[in-house]
């Protein structure tokens, strides 16, 4: 098998004015590993190499990509290469002029996050007064003719607002709303017990999604990212390890998915030392879990292995302690009991009305403190 990548997620910086407690950035984002950000020249080379390798879709993300003053020039490079370019942003301090400049540079699509349907809750989850800028930015994006995605991460605190969130996206004229149930990596794993919803909350929200999909048809695409702890089988993470997708971090490490850097038993190559082509085809990190040879039982003899590829390596590492094991959310996995215990604990606490533990917000001091603890 010699698959070529289709997707590149460029995490331009881990700096961010928001502090979402479920942030997918690494816990040690403020540490030396991510400090020396790639230059404009280096990113341009990464985009060229990615295009030559077969990439067609580019996500510009972070952290907050707007904090890169060279964002317009990076978009222009991507546009010349024919990449379909999406900006994934919190929209903090985003002005209409800046968005217009990005449009002129060739940006194709804008994804703006919102933390909840109302200002009070949204700002509380973001740890920053950010809601007003977001609403303004949604309107700028539509006025400029961008296709618009509203991005929401769902968890215990905002799942009851799914209907209001869909109505918000509808009233904005958005093309898509992405309702992404929290995936427990990075900061979200650290805050798992406080973020995890109950089964009843999830079921209620899912009913709303079904009803709203029927009502809206193709007017608004409602994407529902599964809450995998509550599923029977794992997600086909990234469409399979090293098959279609890669992430480049602010300082140039290349990962097979956004969370892979947390797998401490892998060594990741850097675009400063190697070409993207070499990293994709030759590096140990990309080859380790490609195909099926690495698979343990029960995956090795399971019919679903071509559907879900044995699930997520990062989750196996985080929960079961070994990235080469079956994803523990799989009901056939030897470590499923660890997931069940986490889910049960949340259900019990909710039934007894125990207040969840306090959230740790994503911020540089907390990042350094957690890194020091190891």
């Amino acid at each position, binding site marked *: 098998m010699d698959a070529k990548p289709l997707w590149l997620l460029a995490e331009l910086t881990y700096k961010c004015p928001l502090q979402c407690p479920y942030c997918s950035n690494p816990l040690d984002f403020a540490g030396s590993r991510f400090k020396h950000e790639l230059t404009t020249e280096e990113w341009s080379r990464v985009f060229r190499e990615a295009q030559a390798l077969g990439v*067609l879709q580019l996500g510009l993300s972070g952290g907050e990509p707007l904090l890169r003053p060279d964002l317009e020039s990076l978009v222009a490079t991507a546009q010349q290469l024919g990449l*379909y370019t999406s900006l994934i942003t919190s929209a903090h301090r985003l002005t209409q002029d800046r968005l217009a400049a990005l449009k002129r540079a060739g940006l*194709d699509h804008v994804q703006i996050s919102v933390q909840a349907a109302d200002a009070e809750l949204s700002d509380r989850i973001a740890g920053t007064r950010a809601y007003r800028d977001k609403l303004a930015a949604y309107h700028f994006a539509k006025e400029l003719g961008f296709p618009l995605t509203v991005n929401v991460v769902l968890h215990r605190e905002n799942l009851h607002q799914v209907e209001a969130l869909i109505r918000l996206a509808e009233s904005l004229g958005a*093309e898509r709303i992405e309702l992404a149930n929290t995936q427990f990596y990075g900061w979200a794993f650290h805050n798992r017990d406080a973020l995890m919803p109950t089964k009843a909350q999830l079921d209620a929200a899912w009913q709303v999604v079904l009803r709203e999909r029927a009502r809206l048809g*193709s007017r608004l*695409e409602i994407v529902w990212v599964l809450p995998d702890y509550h599923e029977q089988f794992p997600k086909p993470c990234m469409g399979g390890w090293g098959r279609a997708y890669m992430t480049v971090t602010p300082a140039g490490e290349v990962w097979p998915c956004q969370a892979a850097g947390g797998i401490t038993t892998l060594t990741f190559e850097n675009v400063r030392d190697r070409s993207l082509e070499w990293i994709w085809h030759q590096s140990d990190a990309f080859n380790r879990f490609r195909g099926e040879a690495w698979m343990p039982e029960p995956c090795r003899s399971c019919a679903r292995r071509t559907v879900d590829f044995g699930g997520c390596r990062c989750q196996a590492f985080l929960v079961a302690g070994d990235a080469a094991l079956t994803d523990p959310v799989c009901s056939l996995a030897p470590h499923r009991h660890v997931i069940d215990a986490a889910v049960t604990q949340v259900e019990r606490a909710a039934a007894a009305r125990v207040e969840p533990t306090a959230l740790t917000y994503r911020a540089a001091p907390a990042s350094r403190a957690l890194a020091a603890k190891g």
Partner: protein
Amino acid sequence: MNPAPAAAVPRLHPKARLQRDEVRGRDVLLYPEGLVTLNPTGAEILGLCDGVRSVADIVAALEQRYGASGLVQDVMSFLDGLGAKGLVIYGR
């Protein structure tokens, strides 16, 4: 969704972009978080969707180009498939 009549004028939704995939030697339709692989005929049909030509015009242009006839069903089902994904819309 009902199939579009032959007089309808199809065009690409602004969120979608036709792009040559040099590496794999094919054309693709790119849109937010997705892509559709096109065969040469599909790419040609979309190339004719200029917001001026109707479905009937597009069929006529293709039939003339290839000295063929009876392409109307193929063109319509191709456009309906993309219409169902919201990638092709109708109206000037």
